[in-house]
């Protein structure tokens, strides 16, 4: 099995949120529900500010806490891609369970009231079957977001990539989301902003 994952080049990202909207489109999500979300951070003081944006979805961890927490075994690692996906045969326990939602250190799986079940990023299986990338990656205006086998991403985009940052502690679950930070993203004093 090759483990697939995402890579974000923060130095390129303009915070445009096309990935977030493409994800909503593909997964038909309402306002309030995200499988991918972009957050913005600011550092420094005038006239030397810094800015960066974090486009985050499922980390498709090696040891997904959500899967471990699911009492019915609905969340599984895909045998071919290592992506964290649902077993279609198993029904979600719904609103009153949500143990996966609480277990994930990256707050990824989300409960969807209109569907009565938990949803999450599945890596756009339709696109992958056609040999394409997930919708978020295909939509990335600045080509900051990539998807592929994690070892290949690491090799291609260099050893600069990290899986934790000051605003973004490591969840201890073997994250497969690589980030190339810009200088602002490395600063320990930061503020989340809603630009």
């Amino acid at each position: 099995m090759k483990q697939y994952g995402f890579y974000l080049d923060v130095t390129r990202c303009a915070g445009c949120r096309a990935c977030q909207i493409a994800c909503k489109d593909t997964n038909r999500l309402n306002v309030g529900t995200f499988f991918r979300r972009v957050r913005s951070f600011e550092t420094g003081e005038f006239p030397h500010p810094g800015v960066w944006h974090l486009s985050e979805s499922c980390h498709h961890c090696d040891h997904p806490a959500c899967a471990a927490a699911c009492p019915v075994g609905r969340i599984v690692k895909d045998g071919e891609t290592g992506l964290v996906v649902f077993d279609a045969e198993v029904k979600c326990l719904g609103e009153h369970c949500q143990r996966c939602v609480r277990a994930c250190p990256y707050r990824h799986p989300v409960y969807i009231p209109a569907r009565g079940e938990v949803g999450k990023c599945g890596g756009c299986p339709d696109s992958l079957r056609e040999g394409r990338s997930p919708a978020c990656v295909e939509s990335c205006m600045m080509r900051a977001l990539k998807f592929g086998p994690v070892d290949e991403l690491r090799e291609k985009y260099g050893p600069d990539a990290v899986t934790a940052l000051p605003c973004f502690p490591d969840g201890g679950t073997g994250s497969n989301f690589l980030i190339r930070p810009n200088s602002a993203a490395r600063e320990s004093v930061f503020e989340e902003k809603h630009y």
Partner: protein
Amino acid sequence: MDDITNRERLLRGRDFLYALFYKAFAREPDAAFLEALSDPGTAACFAAFTGEAPARLAELRAPENGETFIRALRKEYMRLFVGSPVPEAPPWESVYTGVEGLLFQEATLEVRACCRRFGLLPEKYPHAADDSLALELGFLSVLSHRAVSAHEAGREEELRRLLDGSHTFIKEHLARWLPRLMRRMGAAVLLYRRLARMLDAFLKADGRVLEKLHEGRVPEIAEVPEGFENLFAALDALTVPDAENRLRVCEAADEEGEGKWVAAPCWHNCGGKCLVRAFVKDGVVLRQGTDNSSTDDEINRQQRACLRGYAQQFQARGLDRLRFPMRRKHWIPGDPHGELRGRDEWERITWDEAAQIIRDELSRIRESYGDNAVLALGSQSESLLNKLNINYLTAWTTSSWGTWYAPGVLGWADGCNFYDCNLDRLDMMNCDYVVAFGYNPAWSALGNATNYALSWKNAGVKFILFDPIYTDTASILGARWVPIRPGTDMAAMMAMSYVLLEEDRDGSLIDWDFLERCCLGWDRDHMPADAKTDENYFDYLRGAYDGVPKTPEWAEKISGVPADTLREVARVLGRKNNVALLCSYACARTYDTEQLPQTAICLAAMGGHIGKSGNCVGPTAWNHTNNFGPRLIKAGSPGPDGAVYGTGRATAVCETQLWGAVLGEPFNPTTVFTKINEAGPDGWKNAIAGCDLTERVESMTATVKMIWTAGKAKLTTCEGAKKGIEAFRSVEFVVGQGHFLTATNKYADIVLPITTNWEREGSYLWEGYYNRDILLVSRRVLPSFYEAKSDLEAVIAVGEKFGLSADMWGTVSAKQRLFNSVISSTVIKEDGVNWEKLVSVTEDDLREWGVEGRPQEGRIPLRTYMADGLYRVERHVGDKFGYIDKKDFRDDPEGHPIATVSGKIEFACQTWADILNSQGFSESVYSAIPKYRAPTQGYEATFRVGRPGGGKGKYPLQCINPHYQRRAHSVFDNVPWLREAMPNPVFLSKTDAEARGIREGDTVKIASPYGETLRKACVTARMTPGVVGLPHGPWLRVDEKTGIDRSGSENYITGQVATGMGCSGYNTLCVEVSLFDGEPIPDDQEARR
């Protein structure tokens, strides 16, 4: 009773009840319906199924105040299910089971498939959504009626199929979403909440009945009473529902069509011009995508869409789209109650009624008031007035360009209509530096503009960006950010020119050879022949005319840029570096900067940054995606359309005087500015031909009684919206048309629903107005939405009421014209000189299109081009497609003069001064050389005495309007996903916020001399202190009690200020910001309009 009789009763009973519920939800209520509803037979039948008697049905029969009651019921029905245009309880399944806020989704197709299997389709297929409450009930009603017939004829198999089909449909559709619909009906206390509960109970009961019947048993239920014939007759006698709520019979079909990806390019003018793709099945967009063609590298980029492109489905199928024409309730011809515009109620009318009203009003107003009584904003309404031989007013504007509107006089292209300026994007890699003023494609254009700039950075180019905001562009490009006050760029540029002059001791900074050969007006010895004085630029810089040398220290006081920084950047601009000096439209959208382009050109010319590789000076307009030069692929011509023209002609009013003109104030009817940016850099010569530039234009007035606005969103995008509302309310009749009840349409009397580009035959979108490497094309993506017509069809509908034939607008079909354009399109060959046809056409193509034409050879098959929606000329470094503006001129100025009077670069441009002085809006006299003037509403105006020093005045901050990623101008402001993604705050510097006790997220009031608006504060280190960033384009939402706008509309607080060339001065505005002590505003994602 035996089983057969019992089953017959059951089937008849449900037949009756479905017919009743269908009629209940498919049409407005009336007395006859109430009669049937309140008949004891109805109650008995309902009770037989549900085991409960419906509450108080009898009281509906004959209330004391019959007519009044029925009117109230009708109102409830309209409010809940029809809306104006958004119903309170949207009666479509998609809204509840798919993405909220969208019609035509997966559920629509599922319902359609169900109907098709039984040989039914909506009468308005594919324009009306199949999954409406009325149509779903209509479907069940038809099936239950057929079930009775099947039973009577003993067709058991058919009966079973009908009952099973109904059962599945109820379970999978109606019963699934009806409870969610009911939750939206809280306020429907008169009738509909009750009816919905009855329906819910009946569906449950019928589900049980059908289950039993499926198992071959006849359920034991209370006896269904006899005597339905009368009640059926009563239902039959009711008027038929609206067409959108009726089904028709079609050929039954089991198979469903396949969905496919189609090219659906974005049509908005953000400048991106990107390839959206849509996955469409039977007229329904199921999801979107973008350019995923194989190559995407640093040089050849896919034309990927942005967040707005991905939300295009909300433009085409949003719940808030106009579905039918509407009329404002209290508007009466001749007694318009104009003060109610923007807050009145709406009534649904037919297209025929709308066209008749417009015809009658146009005739009445023409007869009563004569010429110029109509202000027409939008080319289609203008076309009708022209054909009716009515003289009218329209608007002209510099709104995009700012003072880059007419640089032709200076020998430059404007960068929008004409793009032979600056450098090809690959040549930009040869720069050492890009020095730019207000340069933020990451927010203003999206698409590839920022990617191209990043490719220059990766090639080693360094960026120095003057901007009041530390932009994402600056961050991505690793730029040196030079914070600067709005409207002061000229001062900074002049100071840098001064430094070049001062420090050029050994000829290391100034390109004297270039000045000598190619420029005039820079010193006393090199004056153009037409100069009326000997004023020259260098002496001005030295202070010869006003005693003020334009030193960096002088500029620092104005611009806030430290003198040392200006010195450093000036040295960068010396002749030894290759520099692109780029000046955005944003810094030119300021008052009294008519000589800003000239100032920039002078600065670049001094360093010789013109006409050679890696050097240029000019405007940055995002229309061309950071990629300048002649097009490499050209759209062809649609050919003659056979349209007939009348004699009605327009007098154009500058937008900065527009609302005043409507209110009867004098305006400047210059014809020079309206024509000066047409027809290329040479166009100014035609514009002034026959004009006496020694005489000032005399002002005039008009009596405007009607406004017809067609898709122009002027109350959002034109300055002085508060006065604009006053103007709208002052006239007798207002027509609006568009996709939504926009801020502008809200103030109309009649609004017409218009199709989006996705619903039209297809087009070359903004032909030529984008990246020179690509050419986008589109075909129809979707059928039209409900009753929407194109702008053209709308005016033709009105024209027909005047007896004008549709042929007057052209006799060639839209499809033929598109075809003509595509087949005559050409693409450059690899040699960079010769051209070939873009597409090959076969006999098959001609048959498929059904158009006239001949087969031809071209680079790619027509079919491929139309399917891709895009052709891209592949580029590589060193290809033959490069462009360097004014290279010929620099190499041989006499052989290749530029379009100025002298043929050289004019530091002293007498013609421009003469145009400003004769045609302009200012009393003050312009010189031929650029001179800094303190802008109206600029930094200087923030002080009590109107110049730095002493205390600050009442409006101590400067406000600018950054373009905002969530919108393309005003478009997309209504899209829920985008409102959630970006909250549209007002940007405040930490210094200014702290001084006012404002914290992140506080609701603040931004007040100017012209109006007040509210926003939540975003307190940021990225804003220059003293500057406030209020994003451009929200749909205004005025609180009628306080007169304060709650949407953050930037133009509600700009004024109608006409100075200089009548330039729109959006980025020069003095404001104060304070904590708002009234009701805080909700987050934008919650603020529904």
